[in-house]
């Protein structure tokens, strides 16, 4: 019995505190809630558009799924499942994600160790060059890189 009473006491207090806080911060909460909802809409739109069949997409907005649930279909997802290009694309994504994470971390960790703990001539200068290279636009490397890999890339794609 006493345990319940002890339990009840702080909860009712915090509840009252919560209400008073809700009132003092009411407008702020409403403002932030409106912002959050606005920020969510495009993503929700993507989700509900994915439930429309191509024919319904032309004549219906995704928000009409709410008033007319019969519009929703998982047809696009079953197509996704049966599409033969998707597995190879997923594999490529995995290759890039794993390779693009593991390799830079390994290489950068080694370089960071050298910069942090080894005193070698020109250390600061080399470091500055590395920092400078951080902002080189990808476009600068695009032309040479694309031309050196175009032939090999297209041949791999064909073989898949």
């Amino acid at each position, binding site marked *: 019995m006493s345990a319940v009473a002890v339990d009840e006491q702080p909860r009712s207090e915090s509840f009252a505190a919560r209400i008073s806080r809700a009132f003092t911060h009411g407008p702020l909460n409403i403002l932030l809630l409106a912002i959050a909802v606005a*920020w969510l809409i495009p993503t929700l739109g993507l989700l509900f558009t994915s439930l429309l069949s191509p024919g319904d997409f032309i004549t219906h*907005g995704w928000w009409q799924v709410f008033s007319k649930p019969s519009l929703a279909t998982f047809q696009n997802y079953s197509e996704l499942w049966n599409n033969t290009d998707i597995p190879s694309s997923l594999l490529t994504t995995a290759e890039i994600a794993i390779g693009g994470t593991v390799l*830079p971390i390994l290489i*950068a960790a080694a370089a960071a160790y050298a910069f942090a703990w080894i005193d070698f001539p020109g*250390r600061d200068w080399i470091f500055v060059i590395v920092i*400078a290279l*951080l902002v080189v636009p990808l476009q600068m490397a695009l032309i040479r890189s694309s*031309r050196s890999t175009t032939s090999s890339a297209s041949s791999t794609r064909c073989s898949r």
Partner: protein
Amino acid sequence: MSGGAGGGSITAEPAVAQAPLPDAGARRSSTTLTAIAFLLPAALFLGVWLLYPTIYTIVRSLFGRSGFGDFVGFDNYKQLWTNTLVRDSIVRTFVWLAIVPLIITIFGLLFAVLTERVRWSVAFKTILFMPMAISLFATGVIWHVMYLKDPNQGAVNAAIGGVRSVFASSGPVEDAQPSTATVTGSKSRGFTLKTPLQAGQSALIGLTGIPPDDLPATAKQAKVPHASNSEITGVVWRDFSPGGGKPGKVEPLELGIPGATVELKGSDGKTESATTGDDGSFTFDDVGSGRYTASVSASTFSSAFGGVSWLGSALITPAIMVAYIWVWAGFAMVVIGAGLAAMPRDVLEAARTDGATEWQVFRRVTVPLLAPVLSVVFITMLINVLKVFDIIVSIAPGSTQSDASVIAVQMWRQSFGGVNDFGFGSAIAVFLFILVIPMLMLNVRRFRREG
């Protein structure tokens, strides 16, 4: 690529240098060898994938489209200003730079400060950060659909149409023509009765050419109302009956046009307006002795909301900017929020104790203390905005892509997307690089200061 390299920790004093050993020379060369071994992989990667292509691009920019046999000097750079498509893109990039990073930083700051005061800040931050998890290309697809012109497809136009229908309803009919020569005008200018009216007269404004089923269902048999000495009355009706009927005469089976807006303009320039009833009749009370012109205003024929063409040439750039801000505001908020969390609270408390208002605390304490973080966010966004590319390609439809294009898009277009002029493309890339250099220097300075 070299993102993690260095980690900004050159602060740590190397242990080896502090030990003055007798064979320091030998030791020194051996540590240099170790350093080279540690740096070599990174150097190789940077060299092959960044440094060499960069130098290649710089050299390539001095040659024409057919290759290294065709030296053109700085002609490609001159083309930056003579090619209007590229010049417009450069100007547009500067517009982006002037607007977008600032808005993103301000949004990030406001959101970071405001979420500190609510209990569900984690949920708020998650929602705002979510767009960062979607690839920019997919973001472009989302917003392209949001911006579609048809209010039945584009969510933005559907919302505007919904709000608009609350305030301004569309007119009762879509199309019409005068039935006789006594009425002039068109549906875009409105229809005016040629003969002026005086008090006690009734106006007959007959219209035809109204599409079938276009009249509101409430329409009733047209009736010419009686006008007393101080009134001007009249009727706006569909001057067409199933048998044809006689133009200019109100006959049985001819329906009035309900909800039409009729304007009565006096010779003194004053205008009154009235709305027709279900039988198409209207009445103006207490008119003076002058002459009046009656007309059916164009708003009667205003069609339903057709949608703003967000993806059209005029609005495409602001529309893409909104989408871009939607993506990056969450990033700014999280970075600034981290800075805010690390801020000494006692300073804020001291300011509040001294009687500063919340606004003063924000303006005089929070913002100055956050300045380093704000500048990091701002510079990062400047660099990102300079390179903005995929979101433009994915939002803008082909027809307005040149109205939205920026430097990075043109660089791609000129070198890969059809034109295949690698010399000119290289020149655009080098120009982009030159624009980044000031930010590069800021970056280097910051790292050195921290070091």
